[in-house]
């Protein structure tokens, strides 16, 4: 989504071959109201920062990542965080370490025996 209208979204998606496979909704936020809600609207430029936000089915913000205008985001990392959130919703007593990629990878269950022993838990 950006501050462009749905008409410009259509034109861009039709013209740019990099977008040929896009299936997601392209939302129009011409007044920047949603961009302002998330703090990514640049008032002096009328542009949005490169922000990615994951919202749970309960309407809660679960992740936020914001890059400046000139740096793209890594979709693999966004997808990793998405999968981790789904996993953690089902397994609320666990934590996903930084190297966690997918269900089945090692997670951490915080407790007294793990204090100061994360290294051992990760390398068991």
């Amino acid at each position: 989504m950006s501050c462009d209208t749905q008409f410009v979204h259509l034109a861009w998606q039709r013209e740019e071959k990099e977008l040929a496979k896009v299936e997601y909704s392209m939302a129009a936020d011409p007044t920047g109201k949603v961009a302002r809600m998330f703090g990514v609207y640049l008032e002096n430029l009328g542009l949005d920062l490169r922000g990615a936000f994951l919202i749970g089915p309960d309407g809660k913000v679960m992740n936020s990542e914001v890059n400046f205008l000139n740096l793209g985001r890594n979709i693999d990392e966004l997808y990793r965080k998405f999968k981790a959130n789904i996993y953690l919703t089902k397994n609320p007593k666990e934590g996903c370490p930084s190297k966690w990629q997918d269900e089945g990878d090692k997670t951490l269950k915080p407790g007294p025996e793990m204090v100061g022993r994360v290294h051992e838990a990760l390398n068991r």
Partner: protein
Amino acid sequence: MNEIALRVGDLVPDFKLTTYEPKTKNFGEFDLAQAKKDGKWTVLFFYPADFTFV
């Protein structure tokens, strides 16, 4: 100046936006209240503007 922005853990106020739907080549609507009703996760992916580069 932006008003205070949402942070991780905050509840997002419901909003609706008009969309372009590449799958059907038609216009549509995104409604956060509906996404919640459907039990769906939502990814909001902001970028500066159409026809920008990275």
